[in-house]
């Protein structure tokens, strides 16, 4: 597999794009009370070699007999032995995955969707804004940046979650910050335990960052309200709309723009997204029930 930022890799699939490919659960890591990271490996060696994805893309994760859910890939796109999926246990499929012990077989279809603009980000300051589980699809882009650190200028990660215990990838957040390779600012809604860091919504953290509007690229992924507020706040700081990227979520069924479920106005989120250039969707993004 070649690590690439250019062409989107072809999705891997069984006899066709509707047919999942089996993968084994190698490890399960508890991130917080309802979020776990599953490390998966395709059972077929040849598929392992063929499979490639770009940071920001997702897979349809399948639990035999239960169903599928769109889950973003949270591991390093430049290693292809295994894949991480960080899952919040909230729905039918995610609950079923959560019950599976290591070594169980699940299915994967993908990768689908658009990626973070790693190429356009080169030579720029980068602000990454994540809320809760929204950090999962951003983690591969952070790995990419760390692997190619010299290509990028200042990199800041602003992360918000409910409580300190809710932090996803908590030790990595600390490690990245310690390394000094990227600046990590975390805020929580409720300070519990011995938390002495910032309290409040993640967009408050923006005040602590100097944004050079003309040379900053912003990546946002979180709940709908965070996506909106963060995007608008950066626009107010005069960051051009086409330098702001958001990753959106919808109910997806096919993953490649055929079933119609995930439409947002003219866009199929599975195919035209999940990562959108804000300029593309600014006119419909703030309207309800699109």
């Amino acid at each position: 597999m070649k690590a690439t930022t250019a062409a989107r890799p072809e999705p891997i699939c069984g006899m066709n794009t509707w047919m999942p490919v089996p993968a084994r659960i190698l490890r399960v890591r508890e991130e917080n009370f309802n979020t776990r990271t599953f490390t998966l490996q395709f059972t077929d060696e040849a598929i392992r070699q063929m499979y490639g994805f770009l940071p920001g893309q997702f897979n349809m994760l399948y639990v035999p007999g239960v169903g599928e859910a769109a889950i973003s890939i949270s591991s390093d796109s430049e290693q292809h032995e295994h894949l991480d999926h960080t899952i919040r246990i909230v729905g039918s499929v995610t609950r079923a995955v959560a019950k599976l012990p290591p070594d169980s077989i699940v299915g994967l279809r993908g990768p689908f969707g658009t990626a973070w603009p790693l190429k356009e980000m080169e030579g720029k300051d980068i602000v990454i804004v994540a809320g809760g589980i929204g950090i999962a699809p951003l983690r591969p882009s952070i790995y990419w940046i760390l692997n190619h650190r010299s290509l990028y200028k200042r990199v800041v990660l602003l992360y918000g979650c409910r409580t300190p215990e809710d932090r996803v990838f908590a030790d990595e957040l600390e490690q990245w910050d310690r390394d000094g390779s990227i600046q990590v600012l975390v805020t929580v809604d409720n300070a519990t335990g011995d938390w002495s860091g910032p309290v409040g919504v993640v967009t408050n953290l923006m005040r602590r960052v100097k944004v050079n509007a003309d040379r900053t690229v912003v990546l946002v992924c979180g709940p709908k309200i965070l996506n909106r507020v963060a995007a608008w706040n950066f626009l107010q700081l005069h960051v051009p709309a086409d330098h702001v990227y958001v990753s959106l979520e919808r109910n997806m069924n096919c993953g490649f723009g055929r079933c119609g479920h995930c439409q947002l106005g003219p866009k199929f989120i599975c195919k035209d997204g999940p990562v959108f250039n804000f300029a593309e969707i600014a006119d419909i993004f703030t309207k309800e029930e699109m």
Partner: protein
Amino acid sequence: MPSAPPKVAVYKFSSCDGCQLQLLNLETKLLELVGAVEIAYFLEARRRVLPPPYDVGLVEGSVSTPEEEDRIQQVRRDCKYLVAIGACATSGGIQALRNWANVEEYARYVYAKPEYLSTLETASPVASHVFIDFELRGCPVNQYQLLELVSALLTGRKPNISTHSLCIECKRLGNTCVLVAQGKPCLGPITQVGCGALCPKFNRACYGCFGPMEQPNIPSLGQWFTERLGHTPRDMKRMLRLFNGYLEPFKQASEHYERKEKGG
């Protein structure tokens, strides 16, 4: 590793037994089912009774007597996952028609010695008494939905039971709309899917035995029926008050048409 098969209990309250029969009508599938679960309590089918607690309880029938009022509390305590099955259990059923009338008067019409009866003023759905985990609509329930419910519980997923209009299923099955092509007052556009569009398949209007769909627009269909198809508010009231009359929003709508009927 095979764990112990889940224990299933089937209860009857005020009902006609038709929903329990749907379970028995599964026949070959029932045998598979019996292999996958342990029928711990099902008086209609077998005499043997295993002691509670049970993993899954299926309740048929409405709560209409003081005795049932107490028993449903015990049933809830005995079952981890409780499912109301059929129109009686989910809406009060056809016997809930008495909720708009005088029970004593009704009893006098039907029984020679009504004083032997001990009955509540109203027949009500199970959910008005205890928390239920899931419900299956229909008079009777659809056997494939029953099977889907059990398979889903066995695999630990959410049952694949849709709540949209009957029309979508009716059209998928290739039926011609009896409302549009024959002017029959079909309740399909406000009724929940699940029956397999049985009535329209045989050129009959749906009479809503699966109860209201998600967000039904009853006023709009009612307006069409009264203004275009010549039905009266009384007709509307009677259409809505059949198997699921006591279930919102059919209940509220039927009361609206009753007021119109009386007020002109």
